[in-house]
C-alpha cells in the first residue's frame, strides 16, 4: 500500500488529521519522515503537511523571538537578528540538511540528533503546539520530557526571549567529525548578566540523558556570581550532576561524563 499524502491549508485541519490516524506523521523538512520511509518504516501510512505560512515565519524584531516550526536552519543562518543562534544552526548536518531540516523537526530528533533543541532549551523556549481548540504553549522542558507521547502533536512555533548580548548565549557541539559530525555532547549556555552578576543562568546539554536536559547544578554554581575562574570551575565540576548519558556509536556514557565538565569550562571561559 502506498503512502497517502494529505496537505492542509490550516494547521488546525492538519492537527486533526494527525490525531485521528495512528499511521499519520507530520512531514516537515523530510529529514526524519522521509528517511523512515526509505528505510522501510511501514508504520507510516499517511504523510500530513500544512501549507500555513505561519509555520515558516520568523519574528525577530522585538525582544521576544518567534520561529515557525517549519523554518529551516538555512533560514535562521540568513537572519541577522538571530546571529546568536547561528552556531547552533550551522552545527546541524551539512548545507543540504540545513536547507531542509526544520526547527520543529529538531524537537523530535532523537540522539545523536537534536542539537538545535539544546540551544532552545538553554533559551527557555516555549513550544507552541496545535491543540483541538487552538494553540497552547508548553515549556520546552515539559515538551521534551513528554516527547515520547508527542508523536501525533503538531508543533507550530517556538518562542523565547532574545539574549541581552552576543556574549550572553554560547553554544558548542562536540563532534568527532569536522565540520559535520554527530554530537558526542552538545552544550548551550544562556548567561544573563545584571550588574556584573549572572542572573537566571540556564545550561542545557545534549546526549547527556535520554533527552536534552538542563544542568541545574551547574546553573546554581553560576547563579549570582561573576563569570570568573572559580565560578567557571565550580560550574564545570557540577556539570555532571543529574546526567545519565548512555553509550552509543559515537561515545560511551563514561566518556561523556568525563568530558562534559571540561567542555563546559572551555565554553564558559571562551577557550577553544
Amino acid at each position, binding site marked *: 500500500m*502506498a503512502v497517502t499524502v494529505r496537505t492542509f491549508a490550516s494547521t488546525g485541519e492538519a492537527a486533526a488529521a494527525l490525531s485521528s490516524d495512528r499511521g499519520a506523521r507530520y512531514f516537515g523538512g523530510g529529514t526524519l519522515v522521509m528517511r523512515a520511509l*526509505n528505510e*522501510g518504516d511501514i508504520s507510516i501510512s499517511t504523510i500530513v503537511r500544512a501549507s500555513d505560512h505561519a509555520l515558516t515565519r520568523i519574528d525577530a524584531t522585538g525582544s521576544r523571538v518567534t520561529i515557525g516550526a517549519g523554518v529551516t536552519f538555512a533560514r535562521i543562518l540568513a537572519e541577522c537578528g538571530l546571529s546568536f543562534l547561528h552556531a547552533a544552526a550551522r552545527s546541524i548536518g551539512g548545507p543540504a540538511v540545513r536547507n531542509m531540516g526544520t526547527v520543529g523537526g529538531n524537537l523530535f530528533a532523537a540522539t545523536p540528533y537534536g542539537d538545535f533543541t539544546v540551544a532552545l532549551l538553554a533559551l527557555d523556549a516555549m513550544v507552541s503546539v496545535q491543540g483541538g481548540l487552538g494553540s497552547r504553549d508548553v515549556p520546552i522542558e515539559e515538551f521534551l520530557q513528554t516527547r515520547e507521547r508527542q508523536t501525533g502533536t503538531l508543533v507550530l512555533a517556538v518562542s523565547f526571549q532574545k539574549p541581552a548580548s552576543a556574549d550572553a548565549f554560547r553554544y558548542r557541539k562536540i563532534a568527532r567529525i569536522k565540520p559535520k559530525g554527530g554530537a558526542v555532547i552538545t552544550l548551550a549556555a544562556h548567561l544573563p548578566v545584571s550588574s556584573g552578576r549572572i542572573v537566571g543562568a540556564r545550561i542545557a546539554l545534549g546526549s547527556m540523558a535520554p533527552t536534552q536536559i538542563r544542568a541545574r547544578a551547574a546553573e546554581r554554581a553560576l547563579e549570582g556570581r561573576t563569570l570568573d575562574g572559580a565560578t567557571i570551575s565550580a560550574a564545570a565540576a557540577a556539570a555532571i550532576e543529574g546526567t545519565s548519558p548512555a553509550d552509543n556509536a559515537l561515545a560511551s556514557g563514561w566518556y561523556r561524563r568525563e568530558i562534559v565538565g571540561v567542555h563546559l569550562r572551555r565554553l564558559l571561559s571562551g577557550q577553544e
Partner: protein
Amino acid sequence: MLELRKDIFADERDDNLKEIGKGTQRQDMLGHVTGTSTYFDDHKLQGMLHLKVVRSTHAHARLRRIDTSEAERAAGVRRIIRGSDVPRNLNTLLSLINFGKDDEPSLAVDKVRYKGEPIVAIVADSPREAYEAIAKVRIDYEPLSAVLDVEDALKPGAPVVNETYPKNAFIYHDIYDHQKLRFGDVERGLAAADHVLEQRYQMSPIEHAPTETNGSIAAPDTNGRYIVYTSTQALFFSLDTCAKILDVPSNTFHFIGGTVGGGFGGKVDTLTEPLSILGAMLTGRPVRYVFGREEEMQYGPPRGAERIYIKDGVMRDGRIVARKIRAYFDSGAYTRLSSYAAVKCAAHLPGPYTIPNVYGDVYCVFTNRTPATAMRGFGVTAMDFAIECQMDKLAHLVGMDPMEFRILNAYRDGDMKAHRREAKNCALIECVQVAAEKAKWPIREDFKRASSRKEGGGSRAAIPPTPRDSYAPVATPSQQRTTYDRAPAASREPPPPPPPPPPRPQAPSHGAARFSSVFGTRRR
C-alpha cells in the same frame, strides 16, 4: 604533494618510455564529472521487481518454524523465496579455488548464526510492498547461546557456531586449527635475548563503506540466459559462484559490471547476485536487490577483527633475535575469505625485517557475528599495526631512534625470509631514509648510507635449524556434513560421531607439501 624520487634505484630502471610515467587523464574521468559513468543501478528495466530479505533478529538461534503464508498473500508480492528454493543452498566462496568446505547457505534453513542472516527473500512490485510483506513473515526462533569473542570460541564447550567447523576454527591442511609458520628456534632466541616484550593488540572490525552499496539487477535475457548488472569486484568469481549456487552452467549468465562505486574488498562476496537471479528465474521478470545503508553497515561483511599477541626478543644493540606471534582472525559465522587471509598473514611474518627466529600461529575463528571478508590490506593491515607498534616499543626499550631501529633490522636483498624464500627487490631502508629526509627527522650518517642492496645474504640467507612441534594435531573429520541444506528442520538426527582423524599427510622430500593438502575438498 607527490614527488617522484627518480634518483633512487635509477640504475635498475629504463625511464625511456613514452606513455608510462605520464600523469595521463583517467579514461573514466569525463563520465565521472558528467555523471554518465554507468553503475549497476543505472539500468532502467521495464517491469522491474524489488527483492528484500528477512533477516535474523538473533545472533544464534534454531529456526523452529518459518511461516510465510500471510506474506505470500500480501499485496504486490510476486514470490517468496526460501532456502529450499535455492538449488545448492550451501557454498563457500573459495570453493572456486578448492579452498575450504561449503559452510554457508544463501538463505538460512534450520539455524541462524549471526544477527542479520538472511532467512527469506521477498520479491515484490515495489520496495514498500516488500517491506510490508517482511512484516508479515513469522519466524519462530529458539535462541541459542552465542559466542562473540575469538578466544572464548576456541575454549572447550563453547557454543558451536558453524557445524562445518565444530571446533569454531577453520581447519588447515586437514589437520591443524591454525596455519603455522616456523623458522629457527624461537624459544632459544627468546631465552638468549637481552629483553623480551610480549604485547596484545586488537583491531576492530571495519566497514568498507563504499558510497555505492552492494547490489545487482538480474533480468531474463534472450536464449534463456540471464543478464546481471552487478557491483561485484570480481566478475567471473561472482558469475561462477552464482552458477554453482543456482546449479546451472556458467554460460547461463551474462554479467555486466566494471564500473563500481567503491569496493575496498566489500564487493567480492557475491551476496546479492544469487538471490536476484533466482528471483528473476522464479518470476520471469527483472529483479533488483540492493542493500540499504544500514544493511551495508551491519550485515554486509566487514574487515574482520583480529587479535594479535607478539612476543619479541631484542638485544641491547637493537637486533631483534626472536619474534613469536599468535593471531586470531574473527571470521564471523562463516568462512568467506578469512581462511585465506590467515595464510597470507602467516606469510607476512615477521614483517619486513630479518629476524633469525620466527614462530607464528594464525587462527581463523568462527563467532556469531556478520561474516567478515577481504578489505584493503587484507590479512596484513592489523598485523602491520601490531608489528609496527611493537617496533616502536622495542626501539624505546633499547633506547634507539625508531627510524634507525628499523633500518638496523630491515630485510635486505639476499636475506632468507621466514616463509623460506629469498628476499629480493627490497626497498624498506630507502623508504625509511626518504621519509626521514622529508620529515626532517635526523638519523645518523651510518643509517643514511645503509642500503637494501648491501649487507644482505651470506649468513642471513641460511634457513636455520627449526625444531618440529611436538604436540598432536587437532583431530577433525575431513568431510563434515551438516544437517541443513534443503532438508526441512523438523526431524533432526543427532550428529554422527566424528570419524577418526585421517593420517597426517607425508611431507614430500623437498619439504613443502602440495598446496592441495591445504584444501579439505580439492576437486579430483
